[in-house]
């Protein structure tokens, strides 16, 4: 299993500003995943963060808007840049076990972002 500490748990931000979300895992993992969950919706994968290489972004998400860092095997950050009210969502980081998608995923408690 993995324990994930994600912070901040929530924030209210002004439009045009940026917020950096941190995700710390209690064990070394190869890949970390960042999801967005818009109000009342399901999870949508933003990007996969790999240590030592650039993150891989899903369709509709770009690095300029959601820059990601992965300085080591236990930590990652996601920045939401130049925020607008449409960015108001819950952002979640996640890791999978050693077996990859053959095992369960573990999630941080999420960051509830409100942009005003």
């Amino acid at each position, binding site marked *: 299993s993995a324990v994930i500490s994600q912070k901040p748990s929530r924030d209210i931000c002004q439009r045009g500003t940026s917020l950096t979300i941190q995700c710390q895992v209690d064990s070394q993992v190869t890949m970390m995943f960042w999801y967005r969950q818009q109000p009342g919706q399901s999870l*949508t994968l933003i990007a996969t963060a790999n240590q030592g290489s650039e993150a891989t972004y899903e369709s509709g998400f770009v690095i300029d808007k959601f820059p990601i860092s992965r300085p080591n095997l236990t930590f990652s950050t996601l920045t939401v840049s130049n925020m607008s009210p449409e960015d108001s969502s819950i952002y*979640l980081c996640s890791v*999978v076990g050693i077996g990859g998608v053959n095992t369960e995923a573990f*999630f941080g*408690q999420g960051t509830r972002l409100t942009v005003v």
Partner: protein
Amino acid sequence: SQQGEEDPQALSIQEGENATMNCSYKTSINNLQWYRQNSGRGLVHLILIRSNEREKHSGRLRVTLDTSKKSSSLLITASRAADTASYFCATAPDNYGQNFVFGPGTRLSVLP
């Protein structure tokens, strides 16, 4: 992108009743998993069923998988108020991809 649909979108039952949620998906899968989310917080893994399995039990949970119909169901028996949450299915691809694809979820309310 979302793999499929879950139904119902919302379900309200009385404590002690059973709750059944369904999930459909579109592509071949390695496994299907069910997760629970309380009040917009992190997701908690409930159960995993592999593509070669048809049924699995864990406590009050029963999951079925029909790969011919590309569908799964989650049954919670003898529900409790504490079961109130959103429930999501997630599929793992069979093409060695690393990404789960989540369904839209079912919001379950268990009334005391």
